């Protein structure tokens, strides 16, 4: 008898455990909306291998919502955020999205630092007709694959990056042969397609693709191999640390052709890592911001971050999510006081030439095109200083 | 000097010693005889602290050493030369001798300790540089005993030292044990080789199924055959 009591206890505990995962589901007409609040779910890599892109980018977006709330919110509604971790792992990201959509019943989502994991949530988001603003994931097909009526992006997607680089190279005198150096990950993969296409279109010969590890300790083999190929320029599609290692070794081994970096890296950050701009003399980088950190254009945003998140380090990745939040705020404002998801989507599709905040681009969305940011700026190093070279290579 | 009363020990749930009592007096050579599986090695392992004992009492020079780990038991002056010798195969004979005294407080007289150990086994002098793994069985046994001797134990416990050795070597071993004893070391000898045991021991215990079934001065055990049958059962 005693054991059977114990047994039923255990059985009910097991059931309760599983029930804890379950919850009664009731459908609200306007999920996530009350007269005084709008609930937005944020997903980011707060822990795990991409944690460096987690809190910095989230807080860069969050500060915009904080500022809006400080001014009384949008149409009387304050923005309420629920932040979930995805650990850069697709199953976790999918769980986070499902939790936010079905359990927390958010009005919309804003998130995604890892392309791979946010891609896993795509079907779920579209099937539930939840508007979503991408945080920093650059892979094209997250937004550009059809059908997509709900997912938006407000910063430069990877493919534009590749195209801008190709166009830039086409305008460089005497550059006919280039080598591409980069990782074998989805981050770099997003760029290779348009890059090779663009180079082909401009009649620039692509000599080869050299792989670097994300945890590169040394690039001697790659640099020597590239020197052997005698390219006129090198395209570098690497994460900051690996790029720094590559550039340092290229400098040491006398590979002094022009190098063009993707948006993944930031010149100031590279200079900090390498310790000086010597190795960057011939380096150009596609930049997304209006100016380098500390420049006049960036000051208000840096101030804003310091105000709301004083313990955050101001770094190149800090403001990547800011333009997305600005677009969301604009969409919510335009959607009017009787907010619904459909109205919000309609409002988003109507946004034209909205200032991208820290971003160099202005944001324009349409029903057919949800990638709102298409302009990148070329930065380079002149006399040890980072200067803006121009933006005429935009789309 | 060594007093064991009601010792119970074994491996996990399997109890091998079921209340074993025996003693070794100062300056004595005591033999513990018994068949396979009687609990001879278990007794030595329990004394030495290699396995935990589950009951009873082990005292050495009136101090309880029960429950102490091997390295603590060692410091009381007990050394065990195990059945499988447990040499360091890749280390030289010289290193073995030095290692024997490595845990002793006074290592200033290391050379003297090594030299006096070698006095018992002059044959080893020729092999000081050789790795223990390359020595013959008899030489390995010598290294094992010599290693124990450099610690200058008060009580030396030998677990079947004759195992696998040629008769001539066994006879030599018997003489060495006697010399050791004359130099003041007490010896607890565990053996299946009755001839050797009765030749050197002054007192004999017979163990069967984890208990002492009979004991007495060696003189009481004239008939080896009878003694043999007593523990084979």
């Amino acid at each position, binding site marked *: 008898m005693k054991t059977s009591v114990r047994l039923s206890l255990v059985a009910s505990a097991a059931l309760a455990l599983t029930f804890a995962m379950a919850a009664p589901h009731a459908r609200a007409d306007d999920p996530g909306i009350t007269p005084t609040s709008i609930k937005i779910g944020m997903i980011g890599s707060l822990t795990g291998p991409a944690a460096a892109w987690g809190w910095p980018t989230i807080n860069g977006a969050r500060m915009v919502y904080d500022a809006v709330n400080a001014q009384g919110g949008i149409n009387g509604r304050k923005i309420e955020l629920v932040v979930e971790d995805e650990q850069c792992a697709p199953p976790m990201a999918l769980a986070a999205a499902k939790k936010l959509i079905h359990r927390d019943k958010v009005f919309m989502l804003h998130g995604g630092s890892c392309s791979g994991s946010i891609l896993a949530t795509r079907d779920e988001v579209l099937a539930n007709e939840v508007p979503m603003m991408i945080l920093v994931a650059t892979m094209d097909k997250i937004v550009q694959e059809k059908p997509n009526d709900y997912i938006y992006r407000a910063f430069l997607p990877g493919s534009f990056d590749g195209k801008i680089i190709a166009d830039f190279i086409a305008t460089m005198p005497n550059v006919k042969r280039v080598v591409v150096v980069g990782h074998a990950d989805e981050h770099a993969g997003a760029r290779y397609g348009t890059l090779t296409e663009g180079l082909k279109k401009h009649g620039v010969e692509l000599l080869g693709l050299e792989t670097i*590890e994300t945890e*590169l300790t040394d690039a001697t083999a790659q640099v020597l191999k590239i020197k052997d190929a005698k390219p006129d320029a090198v395209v570098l599609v690497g994460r900051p640390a690996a790029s720094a290692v590559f550039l340092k070794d290229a400098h040491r081994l006398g590979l002094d052709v022009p190098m063009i970096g993707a948006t993944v890296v930031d010149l100031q950050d590279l200079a900090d890592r390498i310790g000086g701009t010597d190795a960057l003399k011939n380096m150009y980088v596609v930049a997304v911001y209006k100016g380098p950190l500390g420049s006049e254009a960036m000051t208000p945003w840096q101030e804003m971050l310091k105000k709301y998140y004083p313990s955050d380090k101001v770094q190149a990745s800090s403001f990547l999510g800011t333009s997305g939040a600005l677009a969301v705020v604009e969409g919510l404002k335009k959607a009017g006081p009787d907010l619904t998801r459909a109205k919000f989507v309609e409002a988003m599709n109507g946004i034209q030439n909205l200032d991208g905040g820290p971003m160099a681009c202005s944001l324009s969305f349409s029903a057919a095109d949800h990638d709102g940011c298409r302009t990148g700026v070329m930065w380079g190093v002149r006399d040890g200083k980072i200067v803006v070279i121009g933006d005429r290579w935009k789309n | 000097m060594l007093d064991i009363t009601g010792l119970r020990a074994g491996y996990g749930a399997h109890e091998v010693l079921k209340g074993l009592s025996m003693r070794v007096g100062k300056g004595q050579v005591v033999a513990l005889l018994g068949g396979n599986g009687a609990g001879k090695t278990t007794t030595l392992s329990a004394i030495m602290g290699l396995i935990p004992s589950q009951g009873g009492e082990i005292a050495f020079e009136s101090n309880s050493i029960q429950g102490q780990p091997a390295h603590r038991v060692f410091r009381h002056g007990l050394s065990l030369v195990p059945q499988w010798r447990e040499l360091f195969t890749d280390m030289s004979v010289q290193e073995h001798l030095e290692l024997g005294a*490595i845990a002793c407080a006074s290592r200033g007289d290391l050379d003297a300790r090594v030299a006096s150990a070698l006095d018992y086994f002059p044959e080893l002098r020729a092999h000081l540089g050789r790795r223990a793994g390359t020595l013959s069985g008899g030489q390995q046994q010598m290294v094992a005993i010599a290693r124990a001797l450099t610690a200058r134990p008060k009580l030396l416990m030998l677990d079947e030292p004759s195992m696998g050795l040629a008769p001539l070597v066994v006879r030599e071993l018997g003489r060495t044990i006697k010399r050791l004893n004359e130099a003041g070391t007490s010896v607890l000898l565990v053996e299946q080789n009755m001839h050797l045991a009765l030749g050197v021991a002054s007192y004999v215990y017979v163990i069967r199924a984890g208990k002492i079934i009979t004991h007495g001065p060696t003189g009481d055990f004239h008939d080896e055959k009878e003694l043999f049958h007593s523990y084979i059962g």
Partner: protein
Amino acid sequence: MEIATLLSVGLSNGCLYGLVGLGLVLVYSSQGIPNFAHGELFMAGAFLAYTAIVLLGLPYFLSFLIAVVGIGLMGMLLEWLAIRPISLHRSLGRASSEVAIVLATVGLAIVLKGLARIPWGDSVRNLPTAFTTQTVTIGGVAIATQRLLIVAVTLVLTVAISVFFARAPLGKKMRATAQNPTGAKLIGIHTSNIYSATWALAAACGAIAGVLAAPLIFLHPDMGTRMLLKGFAAACLGGFGSVTGVLLGGVLMGVVEIFAGRYIATSMMDIFAPIIIILVLLFWPQGLFGARRAARV
């Protein structure tokens, strides 16, 4: 010229692999387990040095020392907290075996990585090099001073550790314990303390590699994962036995890797370590450098 450049880099990378591998070999030969948390000790060493140099502003070599000693103590603590309880169970005949310890080291690796993310997960960090001069030119080959330091430290350390094992009482006790724990107990060696000391020494080796490598790469909680595989490969080549064997294994690994990357395909460099591990363990389980496997019964 090009060959010389490749060699110089391959050699210094190999020294790092060798150092990491050495830590693995020390623990393996004493307890018969591969320490999956070793990469995280490498990482922790780099971060401790970072804390000392960048956050506390201490001089480089003092910070180096702090990192090595600190991580050594940490290795000891880990052994005491996570490994010893399992070995105690084992000696009681109660639990499992080495696999339990292996899984514990896997657990430790995850925990250490997770802990490192709390303060340092938000961005990548930089450790300054030991010398302000970045490169020197020797015979027309530009070599990073940090790489020279790596080779020098590794050589000194290898000699020091070899001497330590041959001469020092603690080194002899460690060897004795590794070869025969029962025999060691019988001559009064407190084997548990020896395991702690072994972990401390192994962790210190990992920390040294971490501090040396950090200026060349970057500081990140995941930085140890790749290094662990390369250290394993070095240890396999060296036969999991001798100090010089693992160093030679590391150097071979570093040199072959860089030449393969240069002359075959750079994408190969990522996969070299696991291939070496598989080939060596399957076909030359004694390793290439004839090191005797530490005898453990």
